[in-house]
């Protein structure tokens, strides 16, 4: 057999490469992982990610050299089933969950992953954000079924962690092509203001300040307060807000903000956080599109893996992460997207430029699912 493999330098976009390698069955070699740094090699969270990948796959081969600067990954088949994983608290569960969201529909058996660690931190997309934006996005692609959900059992803030999330996802044989070209107007804004190990009043203060900004646009705003106590509250104190704007056409734009982890940086006031988060949502609305900026790559992947039909998605400006993801998609699936910039009309007040992404799916079918 002709060997096919891809090779990359550096540990940036580590998850993309491994996820795409797993889906495409191509082996991948990542070299020069922090080779110039004082502390070379893979970090703990990356190792933890690899371990998670190992848990959901069957027959994959991972080789890491002594210093951890070179990684070779030969993917196996995605197995799924019931998986428990203690995620490294250096990154939040969102880091792991983003990859699982991409893999979960293509497993042999439906996935039930219990992830433990940091549920909310300021760097990665939090679990709440993925729950409110990524899940409805995936439903647009025909991934739906019983128990397709992310459930936050325990909330654990950075840096201590101690949270727990249960992610369940059914499997699909193929993905529907989508035409998400018209986002529609935003009809309602929902959100979750959470607080753990701090005064429950914090959440209310966040809600009030966020509403004060958003009420200029829309009356239909409801922000839930979620205060977790006792065993469900994790190890560190903190609070935060996730906002989701739902449009008439069923697109979801989300924004979020978390308090700075305990002992790192300046503490933030809940009022400031609420206001800033609302502004972030406005920024997201300004960017626009049918998919919010943190889920762009997920949408593009599902388009790529669709049947051999044309899919279209309107996005806001492409994030650097998405741009790299597009390059990786070309490497792994030989798919290029037609990228068209849609400029807003003169008198339109709908935010900035939009990007219309069009592609022809590769006709991917879930080879892991067995037939009886």
């Amino acid at each position, binding site marked *: *057999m*002709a060997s096919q*493999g891809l*090779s990359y*330098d*550096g540990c*940036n*976009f580590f*998850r*993309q490469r491994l996820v795409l390698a797993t889906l*495409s*069955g191509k082996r991948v070699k990542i070299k*020069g*992982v922090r080779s110039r740094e004082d502390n070379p090699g893979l970090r703990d969270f990356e190792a933890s990610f690899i371990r998670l990948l190992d848990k959901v796959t*069957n*027959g994959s081969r991972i080789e890491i050299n002594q210093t951890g600067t070179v990684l070779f990954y030969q993917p196996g*088949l995605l197995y799924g089933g019931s998986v428990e994983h203690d995620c490294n608290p250096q990154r939040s569960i969102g*880091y792991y969950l*983003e990859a699982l969201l991409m893999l979960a529909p293509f497993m*042999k058996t439906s996935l039930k992953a219990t992830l433990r660690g940091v549920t909310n931190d300021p760097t990665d*997309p939090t679990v709440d954000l993925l729950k409110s934006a990524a899940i409805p996005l995936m439903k647009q692609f025909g991934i739906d079924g019983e128990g397709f959900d992310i459930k936050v059992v325990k909330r654990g803030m950075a840096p201590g962690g101690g949270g727990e999330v249960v992610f369940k996802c059914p499997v699909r044989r193929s993905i529907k*092509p989508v*035409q998400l070209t018209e986002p529609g107007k*935003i009809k309602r804004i929902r959100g979750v203001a959470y607080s753990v190990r701090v005064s429950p009043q914090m959440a209310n203060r966040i809600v009030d300040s966020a509403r004060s900004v958003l009420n200029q*646009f829309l009356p239909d705003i409801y922000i839930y307060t979620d205060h977790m106590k006792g065993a469900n509250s994790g190890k560190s104190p903190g609070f935060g807000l996730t906002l989701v704007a739902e449009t*008439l056409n069923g697109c979801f734009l989300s924004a979020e903000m978390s308090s700075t982890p305990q002992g790192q940086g300046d503490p933030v006031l809940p009022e400031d956080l609420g206001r800033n988060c609302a502004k972030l949502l*406005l920024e997201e609305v*300004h960017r*626009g599109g049918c998919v919010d*900026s*943190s889920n*762009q*790559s997920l949408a593009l992947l599902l388009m790529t893996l669709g049947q*051999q*039909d*044309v899919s279209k998605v309107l996005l806001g400006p492409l*994030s650097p*992460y998405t741009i790299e993801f*597009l*390059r990786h998609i*070309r*490497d*792994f*699936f*030989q*798919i290029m*997207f*037609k*990228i068209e*910039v849609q*400029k807003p009309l003169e008198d339109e*007040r*709908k*935010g900035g430029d939009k990007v219309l992404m069009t592609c022809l799916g*590769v*006709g991917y*079918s879930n*080879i*892991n699912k*067995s037939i009886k």
Partner: protein
Amino acid sequence: MDGKVKKQKQHQQKHSGPKAEKKKAKKQRGSAEEDERKRNPKAFAVQSATRMAKTFHRAQDIKTRKHHIPLVDRTPLKPPPIVIVVVGPPKVGKSTLIRCLIKNFTRQKLGDICGPVTIVSGKKHRLTFVECNNDINTMIDLAKVADLVLMLIDASFGFEMETFEFLNICQVHGFPRIMGVLTHLDSFKNNKTLRKTKKNLKHRFWTEVYQGAKLFYLSGMVYGEYQTQEVKNLGRFISVMKFRPLVWQTSHPYVLVDRMEDLTDPDKIRTDPKCDRTVSLYGYLRGTHLKNKGQVHIAGVGDFQVSDVNFLPDPCPLPDAQKKRALNEKERLLYAPMAGVGGVVYDKDAVYIDLPASHVNQQQEEVRPTTELVQSLIDTHATLDAKMAASKVSLFSGSATLDPTDISEQSRYEKSVWDPKTQRERRKVLFTEEEEDEEDEDASGSSDDEADESVEEEDQNEDDLSTFLKEARLESTKATAGGGPPVKKQKLEEKEGEGGETEELAFADSEDELENSSEESESEGEAGRARDSGHSDDMAKSESEEEAEQGMCMIRFSLNSWALRWKEGLQQKASEAFLRQQEAAPNLRKLVYGSADDSEEEEEEEELGGLFRVSRPQKSKKFQANARDCSRFNPDSSHNWDLEEMLNSIRDCFVTGKWEEGQDAATLLKEDEELYGDFEDLETGEIHKDQTGQQDENDEDDGDEGEESLVKVDDEEVQKNKRLEKKRRLKERFDAEYDDGDATYFDDLKEEMQKQAELNRAEFEDVDDETRVQYEGFRPGMYVRLEISPLPCEFVTNFDPHYPVVLGGLGSNEGNVGYLQMRLKKHRWYERILKTRDPLILSLGWRRFQTIPLYHIEDHNGRHRLLKYTPQHMHCGASIWGPITPQGTGFLAVQSVAGTKVNFRIAATGVILDLDKSVTIVKKLKLIGYPYKIFKNTCFIKGMFSTVLEVAKFEGASVRTVSGIRGQIKKALSTPPGAYRATFEDRLLMSDIVFLRSWYPVSVPQLYNPVTSLLLPVGQKDSWSGMRTLGQLKHDLGIRNKPNTDSLYKPISRAQRHFNPLHIPNELQKALPFKSKPKQQQRKGKTPKDLQRPSVIREPHERKVMALLHALSTVKNYKRNKAHTLQHAKHKGFLQQKKKEEEAKLKRQKEAQKKLYRVMGQLDKKKQRSSLKGASQDD
């Protein structure tokens, strides 16, 4: 009669009266059906509910049976030619039929049918004919790519095995259209037998294909050809045929190769005839989109990575769309490069002229140089250059040797080569990595020259033609080396002069560039175009950035060499990318994909052992390589969301904002009013006019007065548009309402698919092919050229155009090898059952390969038990190590592909279920041990295990004896090793055998051996043999198993059995009752004399007395017996009498009792009645 014709009375139509009125009324009413229903409602009433339900049911059944799962129609607008495979046993007339069909369609005659023949058969039809020979490899490959199968059957002989084998292959790999053709019908002399045979064959064919499958009859031959009319009819049938999409074909790209060129450097072949070849394969792309650099499988060769794909102009194009009925002669094209039709074929960078090979070859053969010197010169495998390169000179002894490569690097630009094998003239463009100065070039050119001259000297004896060609070529090379600079070199120099960068542009990215490239594409080839658009890019860049890069000029001048130029380009590009990002509208396509293209340039330079392509991120991005991996997109800091204008910029994103014209609720309401504003209240008779319309009219009037006529025209236009819009809306609404009643899920789904298909067609329609190919890959219908680089040399040297080359694209995961689970059934016509671990050749997906299957079956508890042999008439599971193929793909298995046996060759068929080693196959393993010490129910058992550890693993396991006593392993014993203590439910005997039933997991052997039948020498291509089965090996090597000596037959000698006497202990004997006590049954010996009783001898008198007494007693006995019987009889009679009397007595008593009861009852009644009476009286 009398000849007089009696006149009939004419019909008089009534014009008045009741009859006329009736008729008039009938005419007026028109629809008679409704009338009937009204007039006779009973006749149309429901007679039987069940019957009605039944009819309804049936109607629904029929309706639903017509439904198929709707699929998106992905057939391209310009479909590839239809592949028609002509199959049949040898000597049935396949080639004749193809020849006749080709003649029918194109009026051309073709000699040998060699490889696929493509023809234009109609305005929208193209056909590709392929002949399938009797080799099962060919049959399998062609069944996978066929759209239509013409199955030739020799009617004079009947069906042959090949026919059924092919049908079976088709069944497994998706069922293409099959049309039977009966030939040799002229051999029947008797018309009746002919009819009978036809009928028999037809019915058998129907059972195999489907009821009513088309079977065509070719009645006879005329001058070695089939009858024109019949062939014409067959052609018509073919061209109107519709095809259903097959799952495998529509999900994979594939090419039926109709042309093959060897692109390997001839020099390399000369030095090493067995070197790996670079080959370009040509053919129409079918199935689905093919991605560049994808993986393909060449059936019969193996898996390869495509190094490059290009699309070429269609060699057999469909005529331009004009309104006419038939094709003219020019448009009836025929394309069959393998059959040698058309001497000139075009490639993207070369033209091949085919000369009649046999003629040239022979002459060369004759004038072969005989002198040894020349012979040796010819035999040199290395050129003078190479030898020069290999020789090393050391200036001083002990110093390092000098290579010619140290001094100068070879660089050639163009080379024209005579390939004696293929008899073709070719021009080859060669590039070396680094460009050298002129002097070096001259040197190398002269050396080239020398080499060529030497070659010329050798070839002096060759025939005129070749020498002529040689000379021409020599001139050209001289020109290259000398004054006239070659074109390509010039281009390079030009570029150097400009000081620009060489940028390989994947596709034009901005619109102006698109224009540029389209302009230039007409004049130049694509390679030139890419470079030229690069030029224009450069120019633009140099203009814009001249000021910015003043400092960089120094560096630019210092960097002369070509190799370093890309780095400079990078810098430029990085800065440019940055500038673009700053701009309001960045060219995203360039940003995303453009820069990555440059990295590909590097990739080509760095390749690690052919295993991995090194993709180096850009230097400017080097710092990002190890950056934090996070999907968060940080917000633009320039946006200040406290400002009102910023807030206003997104107002319309919310439902509270302004809506578009077509969606605004107010406008929609207004429109509705326009549509439905007017209505008449039927009760009151009042007519409501809509006010808006009136208002509009008024407004219009006002406007008209005040404004000019030009505006009026505009207004009219607007009005017209409005009306049209109105109409459209009304129609839409009506459609929606009308369809809703009948709309089903199925209809919705169909509509959705239809929409998707339209979108698929429309999306990339207006993009030019070069760009389109980048987005969606090469689409089916294109004529493509695939370059595949390391192909085994046997593919070229043993190439036989009679064997089809099928090139199938592989999906994303299908290049890997892994474990497969499948469901398999031995074919019912295959005579033998299949044995586990016997190698089997499978045809799965595109591939044919040999593997070792393990058969298994699922027990009731879900255990997968290994089977030694496949079951006779049942499905079983099979596990193999093979190529990953999507589940649900069918496969077939044969035991060997070599030769044609008389028997049915297809051993098994089945389907892939799972692609994982998820099933553990186990086989039963019985461990046997022997008790060596027996306590009550406890035993020490040895011989089952050999160490304590093994026992420890099996502690608690249940064991059993042959006699059925169950037990459990308790604990290991220290000595002997492997012995253990076990408890049983009963006491064991020393003669008992204890066994432990366990299940041992079996691993699937990892054999994956692709059938490389195409690499075999010509004439032996059907003799591929892989790994032999154990049985074959033993047969071939003459090894016989030593039989188990216990199984051998021996003369039976049965020893006499001795039974020991029963021994009963004394104690027991005493306790036994006498009956059961053992008797002293020893035979009485002779009684001793003293114990013998003396015999009595009577006196005569005594004898007399005895006799008398005897007589008397006899008499007495007789009398007594007689009396006794008499008495007995008497007593019997008495008993009978008594019985009778008794019965009579009973009867009497019963009657008396009856009487008594009746009286008593009457009395009771009387009493009751009297008491009732008395009571009433009392009241």
